[in-house]
């Protein structure tokens, strides 16, 4: 394959070769919103939850509670072009404009629901909207300002809030093996308190057998998604990033029926296996460059990736924070809270052995070094977000060390997850053309240094 040849179009319909198995997973999420709203109309409570890396999701589901995820809903607002009135409402109620786009969307949604619509769902809310919360489940995991925006929702709702705890990753100190039990002990205490609170709030007992069953299902889902991710290292990359983003909520939030989700992911695994066997690409153009997207996407402009696919850019990996790691062996533990604590904690601490190997202090850097090697990346698409500290703060160091250690260049594109006004696709496309020469150059440099891609 020539690096500079104009790519021949192999499919006139779409630039990205979408996985058929992605659509049922996307439907699981959409159906979940519809079912939750229906349940609310029948008088059942709705819980608003943040991404909590499963320690909160599974107890709620085991008690049969309906959950919506405002962060995920904010992505729907953005992708359907409906976000702006909600962002404006947040601004008008005095919240600073530089804060999290997910947070501003949710605050704006709550403001419009409670202050403008008398407690009813705003009429322009996609998918029927989110019903009023009976509980706000906050979390500081991976982004510690998030619990503050749920705390702020007390301006609009009288629902109680619970803030879940998690020891923070990114420290050698925290990853010392002797500290694991101490961290788990802390989480188990917190989880037991949380479950006792749920029982009091919703006046029903925890179904411990159900919780065990859901933990088993969670492990199976993550084993399956982990296998899919491993397969994506193939050349050409069999699954484009947009398929991952469209299909991730049943793995990331356990949205919808988990048995259905597991079956869908197993179908996805089969389809990806088949693609690898047949060397079928995730784009309908010859794969000229293998890109990694860091970190959160511009939800409002996902069609933009079609343009890049037409140039032969295949996004083979993306958004490490949305990927569940290989699940730990939980078979030797009997207490469901301990299983849950270990499953959840595993997300935060699984990267450190490699981090030590590379002598890099930032585990996010090490994660991306490992990914770049495994996926044989030609370049990084860095997407620092005007409204997200957590996903943006390490990108410069990732950029630096990818260049320094692996001679992989980065395209630096400022934007936002929700606010499309700060993203200029035309300008990025112009820069992308020039970036191809940079990727070509460093491909030669890597080979001259003995690297195999």
């Amino acid at each position, binding site marked *: 394959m020539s690096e500079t040849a104009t790519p021949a179009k192999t499919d006139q319909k779409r630039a990205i070769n979408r996985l058929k198995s992605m659509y049922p997973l996307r439907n699981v999420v959409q159906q979940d919103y519809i079912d939750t709203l229906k349940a609310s109309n029948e008088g059942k409570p709705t819980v608003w939850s943040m991404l909590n890396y499963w320690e909160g999701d599974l107890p709620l589901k085991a008690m049969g509670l309906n959950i919506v995820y405002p962060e995920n809903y904010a992505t729907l607002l953005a992708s359907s072009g409906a976000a702006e009135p909600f962002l404006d409402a947040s601004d008008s109620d005095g919240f600073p404009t530089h804060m999290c786009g997910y947070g501003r969307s949710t605050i704006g949604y709550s403001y419009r629901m409670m202050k403008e619509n008398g407690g009813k769902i705003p009429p322009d809310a996609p998918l029927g909207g989110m019903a009023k919360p009976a509980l706000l489940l906050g979390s500081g995991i991976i982004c510690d*300002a998030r619990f503050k925006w749920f705390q702020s929702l007390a301006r609009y709702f009288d629902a109680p809030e619970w803030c879940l705890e998690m020891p923070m990753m990114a420290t050698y100190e925290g990853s010392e093996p002797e500290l694991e039990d101490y*961290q788990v002990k802390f989480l188990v205490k917190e989880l037991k308190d949380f479950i006792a609170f749920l029982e009091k709030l919703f006046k029903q007992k925890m179904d411990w057998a159900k919780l065990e069953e859901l933990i088993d299902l969670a492990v199976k889902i993550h084993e399956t998604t982990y296998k899919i991710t491993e397969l994506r290292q193939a050349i050409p990359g069999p699954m484009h990033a947009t398929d991952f983003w469209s299909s991730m909520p049943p793995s990331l939030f356990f949205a919808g029926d988990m048995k259905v989700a597991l079956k869908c992911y197993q179908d996805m695994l089969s389809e990806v296996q088949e693609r690898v066997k047949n060397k079928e690409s995730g784009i309908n153009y010859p794969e000229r460059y293998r890109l990694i997207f860091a970190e959160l996407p511009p939800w409002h402009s996902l069609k933009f990736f079609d343009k890049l696919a037409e140039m032969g850019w295949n996004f083979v990996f993306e958004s490490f924070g949305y990927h569940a790691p290989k699940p730990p062996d939980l078979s030797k533990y009997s207490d469901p809270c301990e299983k849950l604590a270990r499953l959840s904690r595993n997300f935060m601490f699984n990267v450190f052995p490699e981090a030590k190997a590379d002598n890099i202090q930032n585990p996010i850097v090490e994660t991306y070094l490992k990914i770049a090697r495994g996926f044989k990346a030609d370049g990084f698409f860095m997407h620092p977000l005007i409204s997200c500290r957590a996903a943006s703060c390490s990108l410069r160091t990732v950029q630096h060390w990818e260049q320094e250690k692996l001679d992989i260049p980065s395209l630096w594109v400022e934007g936002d997850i929700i606010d499309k006004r700060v993203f200029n696709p035309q300008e990025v496309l112009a820069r992308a053309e020039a970036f191809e020469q940079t990727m070509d150059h460093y491909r030669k440099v890597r080979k001259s240094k003995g690297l195999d891609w």
Partner: protein
Amino acid sequence: MVTATTKGLSRAHEVYADRGRRMRELRKAGKKIIGYICLYPPIEIITAMGMVPFRIFGDMSEPITAADQVSTTVVCPFLRSIIDLGIKGKFDFLDGAVGAHTCDIGMTTIIAWRDYIKDAPFTHLIDVPHTDHAPAVDYFEGQINFFKKHIEELAGEKLSEDKLKKACELHNKQRKLVRELYDLRKSDPPKLTSMENLEVMVSLFSLPVEEGNELLEEVIKDVKERNIKPGKKKARLMVWGPVFDNTSLYELIESAGADVVVDDTCVGTRAFWADVKAPYNLHALAQRYLVDIKCPRTYRDTQHQETERNYDKDLDSRFNYIKKAVADWHVNGVILQSVKYCDTHGYEVPNLRHYLDTLGIPSIYIEHDYSERSLAPIKTRVEAFVETLD
């Protein structure tokens, strides 16, 4: 050995102008200097080990240049400034740097320090839980214990109960003296300007605790003896928000015709209002730092386990210390200031303003990027705000 030739406020002005000078002297004399970021590393342990805690600040007058290779521009400029100064070698007098997970960017600052700042080879990062739940306090005590063990390795000796007790008493004494100094601003006009006060506070973070206490005693004596002429200004203000370590904002406010008589910032009352309570052990430190410091970075669960939340009750539980300060210092307006991209403070702004409204206290919110030049556009807003106050 103290080499100062000046005393009291002159001494504070001197230390404020060159924070590293005394540290370099002490290091030359064999002392280990341990820098720390934000309020959450328990400095009593550093003092008890015979080392000197030094609060790391940025520099609002120094353009951020070197940090751009390490840090994106959409994160806290105060912490970016620290990284910038570190890369430029401005902390070459430190033997160690201790950070805490006070916020995500605070955490990545110390991580970046390890990769990019060659001074201060000893580093430690303390995980700080998000909540003040009882299991979180226990967990934090474990983190402090881990820090203690690490710094014992650096010192080559164990921390004794007696040394910890003495250090807690010394730092508690400093806190008591600071509260006494703040009391001197209750009069109208206050006996101490906010600029002078900030210079003293910054000095306390730049001196060994014994020298800081000596300085405070001198300043309090001098200020008490001052003969302040009547000359009331239009407003008595409180300033709220995250770190502000430079007198420029206070100069701007006071030049607009107001006295800043009290603050709720981590370079002022937030750092000094809570004591470590006896018995002086690691649990007492965990309680003081995680529960008693009132920083928005902690989810203070005022209605923990309650099945309904009451907004006004929650606000009163979280902010009644501000209500008390407003009454005690006769405050008639509050300026909420924040460095840009500080999310934990940002989410508090509408809620705190609502609370102040219920108290009948006018407020404004101003934002800056931790540079002196970013304050100029704020001046007009501050002047207009002061004009509106009775």
